[in-house]
């Protein structure tokens, strides 16, 4: 899951997935603005066949939190 998440983030934010690590947060990637953030949400929903509620969508502001939320969603 971690590798897939990095791949998706890399594709959405147009960076090499290897630059994404557990400390990556919204301010670290140049393209991580509101629009790209929502594109990431949509890409994750499609890739993992899940749905975020609106509060989750707006709070997924760093890699760790995204991974944690994804793991919870996929397990449930």
């Amino acid at each position: 899951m971690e590798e897939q998440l990095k791949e998706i983030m890399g594709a959405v934010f147009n960076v090499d997935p290897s630059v994404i690590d557990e400390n990556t947060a919204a301010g670290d990637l140049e393209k991580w603005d509101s629009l790209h953030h929502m594109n990431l949400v949509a890409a994750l929903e499609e890739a993992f066949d899940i749905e975020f509620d609106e509060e989750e969508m707006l709070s997924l502001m760093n890699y760790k939190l995204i991974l944690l939320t994804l793991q919870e969603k996929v397990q449930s």
Partner: protein
Amino acid sequence: MIYVTEATKEDFDDVYGLLKLLNDTTIDQKTWGLVFSDVFKTGASPGYLLKDDEKTVGFFGTVFSNRIIDGEEFRFCNCHSWIVDEKYRSKGLLLLSKIHKLKNHILTIFSASSETFQIYKQLKWKEIDNSASVFWGQPLRFLVNGNIQVYQDNQNLEGISESGIKIAEDHKTFQCKINTLRKPAGSALQVFKEVPYFPAKLIWLQKILPFQLKLGHFHYTSDPGLFFTDFKQNIQAICKKENWLGVIIPNRYIKKYGLTEGRKYYKKRSILYKSDIEIDPVLMDMLYSEVFILDLK
């Protein structure tokens, strides 16, 4: 530290620098100032600020209003002017999350850019059909039904509901046309915005005409039952009084009140809303919003 806080009217000078980035040169500083001057006297904040310590790096404009619709009270929050300094774009959603936390409010947006439109749609904001139709006024104006009287501005508000009178009072200072339709069955107050109109094929003629041709864009009526009954007669009377060629009516009203569609009219402005309260989207209008405060066409 980056945080979000409520804006006050004292923040205008800071925010104006950001508003200029919206690139709308048609709106001057004085007009933008109206957004911060509590024009509807609600005492509510003009919006939210994104701050980096003391520096203002983002703004999200709000216009709050309490409306009585169909006898029920609703609290609206019209959202406009979401602008964030480029260096802080990753934090722009912090402003939006403040709005999303408002409970028992109907949130509306009338001026989303194509980019923010996508964001709102993904956040499950609903879109209202904003297509519209033009209904032409009677060219032979003397044929207007004599039982229908039209009064301009706030000249004669007899028979108008309390909420209708409040709307007339609240909007009388803006660039709009307020009129009262009086028929034997009762009275209804309308709010329109005037829009210039000229057929594209005859645009050359516009330059030599000593006057401008106009349409009235319908925004509100205090009594839909009265206004949309014998609709063609009503708009003929209104067009005669206001000297309009016709009126533009959003198709959502046309469908709801069973009117035959007029000539299609395309509006670029989308309507988005989000609400934890049940409301008929037809009842949503652009009053108490930047469309009136900033005189957006």
